Protein backbone atom coordinates (compact mmCIF):
# COMPACT_ATOMS: atom_id res chain seq x y z
CA UNK A 1 0.00 0.00 0.00
CA UNK A 2 1.14 3.57 -0.61
CA UNK A 3 -0.21 7.07 -0.27
CA UNK A 4 -1.46 9.45 -2.94
CA UNK A 5 -1.59 13.23 -2.56
CA UNK A 6 -5.08 14.54 -3.33
CA UNK A 7 -4.88 18.11 -4.67
CA UNK A 8 -8.38 18.92 -3.37
CA UNK A 9 -7.99 17.54 0.18
CA UNK A 10 -4.38 18.72 0.04
CA UNK A 11 -3.40 15.61 1.96
CA UNK A 12 -1.70 12.30 1.38
CA UNK A 13 -4.23 9.53 1.76
CA UNK A 14 -4.14 5.74 1.54
CA UNK A 15 -4.29 4.23 -1.92
CA UNK A 16 -7.46 2.26 -1.04
CA UNK A 17 -9.45 5.52 -1.00
CA UNK A 18 -8.74 6.09 -4.72
CA UNK A 19 -9.73 4.59 -8.04
CA UNK A 20 -7.83 4.76 -11.30
CA UNK A 21 -9.82 6.42 -14.06
CA UNK A 22 -7.84 6.09 -17.30
CA UNK A 23 -5.60 8.37 -19.34
CA UNK A 24 -5.89 12.11 -18.67
CA UNK A 25 -6.40 15.05 -21.04
CA UNK A 26 -8.61 13.19 -23.53
CA UNK A 27 -11.00 15.86 -24.72
CA UNK A 28 -14.56 14.86 -25.42
CA UNK A 29 -15.64 15.98 -28.90
CA UNK A 30 -17.99 18.96 -28.71
CA UNK A 31 -21.56 19.14 -29.98
CA UNK A 32 -20.48 20.49 -33.38
CA UNK A 33 -17.87 17.79 -33.96
CA UNK A 34 -19.98 14.87 -32.81
CA UNK A 35 -22.49 14.65 -35.70
CA UNK A 36 -19.75 14.68 -38.34
CA UNK A 37 -17.43 12.19 -36.67
CA UNK A 38 -16.84 8.88 -38.40
CA UNK A 39 -16.87 5.52 -36.61
CA UNK A 40 -13.12 5.59 -36.83
CA UNK A 41 -12.97 8.99 -35.10
CA UNK A 42 -15.26 7.70 -32.37
CA UNK A 43 -13.29 4.55 -31.82
CA UNK A 44 -10.11 6.60 -31.55
CA UNK A 45 -11.73 8.82 -28.92
CA UNK A 46 -13.30 5.95 -27.01
CA UNK A 47 -10.70 3.21 -27.09
CA UNK A 48 -7.29 4.21 -28.43
CA UNK A 49 -4.82 5.06 -25.67
CA UNK A 50 -1.08 5.69 -25.63
CA UNK A 51 -0.34 3.01 -23.03
CA UNK A 52 3.07 4.45 -22.43
CA UNK A 53 5.90 2.91 -20.50
CA UNK A 54 7.17 5.50 -18.02
CA UNK A 55 5.61 8.73 -16.79
CA UNK A 56 1.96 8.72 -17.71
CA UNK A 57 -0.66 11.48 -17.32
CA UNK A 58 -3.74 9.81 -15.92
CA UNK A 59 -6.94 10.47 -14.01
CA UNK A 60 -7.60 9.35 -10.46
CA UNK A 61 -10.75 9.54 -8.44
CA UNK A 62 -10.76 10.19 -4.66
CA UNK A 63 -14.01 8.28 -4.33
CA UNK A 64 -13.73 7.39 -0.63
CA UNK A 65 -12.68 10.93 0.24
CA UNK A 66 -13.64 14.25 -1.33
CA UNK A 67 -15.23 12.44 -4.31
CA UNK A 68 -13.27 14.52 -6.87
CA UNK A 69 -11.45 13.47 -10.01
CA UNK A 70 -7.92 14.81 -10.46
CA UNK A 71 -4.91 14.23 -12.68
CA UNK A 72 -1.63 12.58 -11.81
CA UNK A 73 1.74 11.87 -13.37
CA UNK A 74 2.59 8.30 -12.44
CA UNK A 75 5.45 6.15 -13.62
CA UNK A 76 3.91 2.98 -15.04
CA UNK A 77 7.15 1.05 -14.48
CA UNK A 78 7.90 1.95 -10.86
CA UNK A 79 4.34 2.92 -9.82
CA UNK A 80 5.78 6.14 -8.36
CA UNK A 81 3.58 9.22 -8.38
CA UNK A 82 5.55 12.26 -9.56
CA UNK A 83 2.78 14.81 -9.04
CA UNK A 84 -0.96 15.32 -8.85
CA UNK A 85 -2.95 18.35 -9.99
CA UNK A 86 -6.52 19.57 -10.21
CA UNK A 87 -8.87 18.63 -12.99
CA UNK A 88 -9.11 21.29 -15.69
CA UNK A 89 -5.57 22.59 -15.33
CA UNK A 90 -3.34 22.14 -18.39
CA UNK A 91 -1.20 19.11 -19.17
CA UNK A 92 2.10 19.36 -17.30
CA UNK A 93 5.18 20.01 -19.43
CA UNK A 94 8.25 17.78 -19.38
CA UNK A 95 10.07 20.55 -17.53
CA UNK A 96 7.41 20.84 -14.80
CA UNK A 97 7.51 17.08 -14.35
CA UNK A 98 11.32 17.17 -14.05
CA UNK A 99 11.10 19.86 -11.38
CA UNK A 100 8.47 17.90 -9.43
CA UNK A 101 10.58 14.74 -9.59
CA UNK A 102 13.66 16.57 -8.31
CA UNK A 103 11.66 18.20 -5.49
CA UNK A 104 10.35 14.77 -4.44
CA UNK A 105 13.87 13.36 -4.33
CA UNK A 106 15.14 16.37 -2.35
CA UNK A 107 12.21 16.10 0.13
CA UNK A 108 12.87 12.42 0.58
CA UNK A 109 16.56 13.05 1.28
CA UNK A 110 15.60 15.51 4.03
CA UNK A 111 13.47 13.01 5.99
Amino acid sequence: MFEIHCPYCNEKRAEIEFSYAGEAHIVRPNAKQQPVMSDEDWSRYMFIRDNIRGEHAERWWHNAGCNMFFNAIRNTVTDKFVMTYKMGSPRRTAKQIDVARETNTADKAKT
Partner: protein
Amino acid sequence: MLFDQAVDIPEIFKSERVSVTLIEGKARYNLRVKAADVTAFKKSTGLKLPSKIGSSSLSKVVSCLKLGPDEWLVIANSTQQKKLDKVFEKASKDFICSITDISHRNIGFEVSGELAAKLINVGCPLDLSLTAFPVGKVTRTIFESAQIMLLRTGEDSFHVECWRSFAPYLRDYFKRVMTTRY
Protein backbone atom coordinates in the same frame (compact mmCIF):
# COMPACT_ATOMS: atom_id res chain seq x y z
CA MET B 1 -39.52 3.72 10.90
CA LEU B 2 -40.06 1.65 7.78
CA PHE B 3 -36.40 1.07 7.15
CA ASP B 4 -35.95 -1.90 9.42
CA GLN B 5 -32.71 -3.13 7.94
CA ALA B 6 -29.96 -2.66 10.51
CA VAL B 7 -32.36 -1.42 13.15
CA ASP B 8 -31.68 -4.47 15.29
CA ILE B 9 -28.40 -2.87 16.28
CA PRO B 10 -28.11 -2.96 20.06
CA GLU B 11 -27.65 0.50 21.45
CA ILE B 12 -24.48 0.07 23.35
CA PHE B 13 -21.25 -1.84 23.60
CA LYS B 14 -19.37 -0.80 26.63
CA SER B 15 -16.06 -1.65 28.11
CA GLU B 16 -14.10 0.32 30.62
CA ARG B 17 -12.02 2.19 28.11
CA VAL B 18 -14.14 2.36 24.96
CA SER B 19 -17.82 2.30 24.09
CA VAL B 20 -19.84 2.28 20.88
CA THR B 21 -23.29 3.82 20.90
CA LEU B 22 -25.89 4.10 18.19
CA ILE B 23 -26.68 7.74 17.44
CA GLU B 24 -30.42 8.13 17.06
CA GLY B 25 -32.80 10.92 16.14
CA LYS B 26 -30.79 12.81 13.55
CA ALA B 27 -31.85 14.61 10.39
CA ARG B 28 -29.23 14.58 7.65
CA TYR B 29 -28.92 16.53 4.43
CA ASN B 30 -26.37 16.36 1.67
CA LEU B 31 -25.74 19.74 0.04
CA ARG B 32 -24.00 20.55 -3.22
CA VAL B 33 -23.65 24.28 -3.73
CA LYS B 34 -21.64 26.15 -6.37
CA ALA B 35 -18.65 28.09 -5.04
CA ALA B 36 -20.04 31.38 -6.39
CA ASP B 37 -23.31 30.88 -4.46
CA VAL B 38 -21.92 29.81 -1.09
CA THR B 39 -21.91 33.23 0.57
CA ALA B 40 -25.47 33.99 -0.46
CA PHE B 41 -26.57 30.44 0.39
CA LYS B 42 -25.17 30.79 3.91
CA LYS B 43 -26.99 34.07 4.35
CA SER B 44 -30.26 32.65 3.07
CA THR B 45 -30.18 29.47 5.18
CA GLY B 46 -28.36 30.77 8.23
CA LEU B 47 -26.13 27.68 8.15
CA LYS B 48 -22.50 27.94 9.19
CA LEU B 49 -21.00 26.16 6.19
CA PRO B 50 -17.24 25.84 6.70
CA SER B 51 -15.05 26.70 3.71
CA LYS B 52 -12.12 24.31 4.06
CA ILE B 53 -12.45 20.67 3.01
CA GLY B 54 -12.35 18.45 6.10
CA SER B 55 -13.47 21.15 8.52
CA SER B 56 -16.76 21.46 10.36
CA SER B 57 -18.90 23.76 12.44
CA LEU B 58 -20.21 21.72 15.34
CA SER B 59 -23.12 22.48 17.59
CA LYS B 60 -25.61 20.47 19.63
CA VAL B 61 -28.39 21.47 17.26
CA VAL B 62 -27.02 21.69 13.70
CA SER B 63 -23.56 20.62 12.54
CA CYS B 64 -22.17 21.33 9.07
CA LEU B 65 -19.35 19.20 7.71
CA LYS B 66 -17.44 19.95 4.52
CA LEU B 67 -16.65 16.73 2.64
CA GLY B 68 -15.63 17.98 -0.81
CA PRO B 69 -15.02 21.27 -2.68
CA ASP B 70 -18.75 21.85 -3.15
CA GLU B 71 -20.23 19.26 -0.83
CA TRP B 72 -21.49 19.50 2.75
CA LEU B 73 -23.22 17.13 5.12
CA VAL B 74 -25.63 18.76 7.54
CA ILE B 75 -26.49 16.72 10.63
CA ALA B 76 -29.17 18.13 12.90
CA ASN B 77 -31.38 17.02 15.75
CA SER B 78 -34.59 15.58 14.34
CA THR B 79 -36.48 18.36 16.15
CA GLN B 80 -34.97 20.71 13.55
CA GLN B 81 -36.16 18.71 10.55
CA LYS B 82 -39.37 20.61 9.84
CA LYS B 83 -37.63 23.95 10.13
CA LEU B 84 -34.73 22.87 7.93
CA ASP B 85 -37.08 21.38 5.35
CA LYS B 86 -38.65 24.82 4.99
CA VAL B 87 -35.31 26.61 4.85
CA PHE B 88 -34.05 24.23 2.18
CA GLU B 89 -37.26 24.37 0.20
CA LYS B 90 -36.75 28.10 -0.16
CA ALA B 91 -33.04 27.74 -0.92
CA SER B 92 -33.70 25.15 -3.62
CA LYS B 93 -35.84 27.73 -5.42
CA ASP B 94 -33.32 30.54 -5.04
CA PHE B 95 -30.18 28.66 -6.00
CA ILE B 96 -29.04 26.09 -8.54
CA CYS B 97 -28.03 23.47 -6.02
CA SER B 98 -28.68 19.95 -4.85
CA ILE B 99 -30.19 19.26 -1.43
CA THR B 100 -30.94 15.67 -0.54
CA ASP B 101 -32.55 14.41 2.63
CA ILE B 102 -30.44 11.39 3.62
CA SER B 103 -31.72 11.07 7.19
CA HIS B 104 -32.63 7.42 6.70
CA ARG B 105 -29.77 6.49 4.43
CA ASN B 106 -27.13 6.79 7.13
CA ILE B 107 -26.58 5.25 10.53
CA GLY B 108 -24.31 6.96 13.02
CA PHE B 109 -22.19 5.44 15.76
CA GLU B 110 -20.50 7.28 18.55
CA VAL B 111 -17.18 5.74 19.45
CA SER B 112 -15.83 7.17 22.67
CA GLY B 113 -13.36 6.48 25.43
CA GLU B 114 -9.60 6.55 25.73
CA LEU B 115 -9.24 3.71 23.18
CA ALA B 116 -11.64 5.22 20.64
CA ALA B 117 -8.93 6.14 18.14
CA LYS B 118 -7.33 2.72 18.53
CA LEU B 119 -10.61 0.96 17.85
CA ILE B 120 -11.12 2.97 14.65
CA ASN B 121 -7.52 2.41 13.59
CA VAL B 122 -8.14 -1.33 13.56
CA GLY B 123 -10.02 -0.84 10.30
CA CYS B 124 -8.83 2.55 9.07
CA PRO B 125 -5.26 3.63 8.24
CA LEU B 126 -5.68 7.38 8.90
CA ASP B 127 -3.34 9.08 11.36
CA LEU B 128 -5.71 9.83 14.24
CA SER B 129 -3.24 11.70 16.44
CA LEU B 130 -4.63 15.02 17.65
CA THR B 131 -2.17 16.96 15.49
CA ALA B 132 -3.07 15.19 12.25
CA PHE B 133 -6.75 14.72 13.04
CA PRO B 134 -7.82 17.44 15.50
CA VAL B 135 -11.24 17.88 17.07
CA GLY B 136 -13.69 19.03 14.38
CA LYS B 137 -11.91 17.37 11.49
CA VAL B 138 -14.10 15.31 9.22
CA THR B 139 -13.53 13.12 6.19
CA ARG B 140 -15.00 10.36 4.15
CA THR B 141 -12.75 7.33 4.27
CA ILE B 142 -12.72 3.53 4.43
CA PHE B 143 -13.27 1.38 7.49
CA GLU B 144 -12.25 -2.16 6.55
CA SER B 145 -14.02 -2.28 3.19
CA ALA B 146 -17.00 -0.07 4.01
CA GLN B 147 -17.11 3.62 3.17
CA ILE B 148 -17.61 5.74 6.28
CA MET B 149 -17.63 9.35 7.30
CA LEU B 150 -15.39 10.01 10.27
CA LEU B 151 -15.72 13.09 12.47
CA ARG B 152 -13.76 13.81 15.61
CA THR B 153 -16.17 15.33 18.11
CA GLY B 154 -13.78 15.39 21.05
CA GLU B 155 -10.31 14.30 22.06
CA ASP B 156 -11.65 10.85 22.86
CA SER B 157 -14.83 10.71 20.83
CA PHE B 158 -15.69 10.15 17.18
CA HIS B 159 -18.84 10.15 15.12
CA VAL B 160 -18.72 7.34 12.56
CA GLU B 161 -21.40 7.37 9.92
CA CYS B 162 -22.10 4.78 7.26
CA TRP B 163 -24.84 3.71 4.89
CA ARG B 164 -27.64 1.86 6.66
CA SER B 165 -26.97 -1.41 4.88
CA PHE B 166 -23.31 -1.31 5.98
CA ALA B 167 -24.23 -0.79 9.64
CA PRO B 168 -24.55 -4.44 10.72
CA TYR B 169 -21.14 -5.07 9.21
CA LEU B 170 -19.60 -2.20 11.16
CA ARG B 171 -21.45 -3.14 14.33
CA ASP B 172 -20.21 -6.74 14.15
CA TYR B 173 -16.72 -5.59 13.36
CA PHE B 174 -16.63 -3.22 16.33
CA LYS B 175 -18.08 -5.93 18.52
CA ARG B 176 -15.56 -8.54 17.39
CA VAL B 177 -12.66 -6.20 18.04
CA MET B 178 -14.01 -5.17 21.42
CA THR B 179 -14.71 -8.69 22.61
CA THR B 180 -11.33 -10.00 21.49
CA ARG B 181 -9.20 -7.07 22.59
CA TYR B 182 -10.77 -4.85 25.18
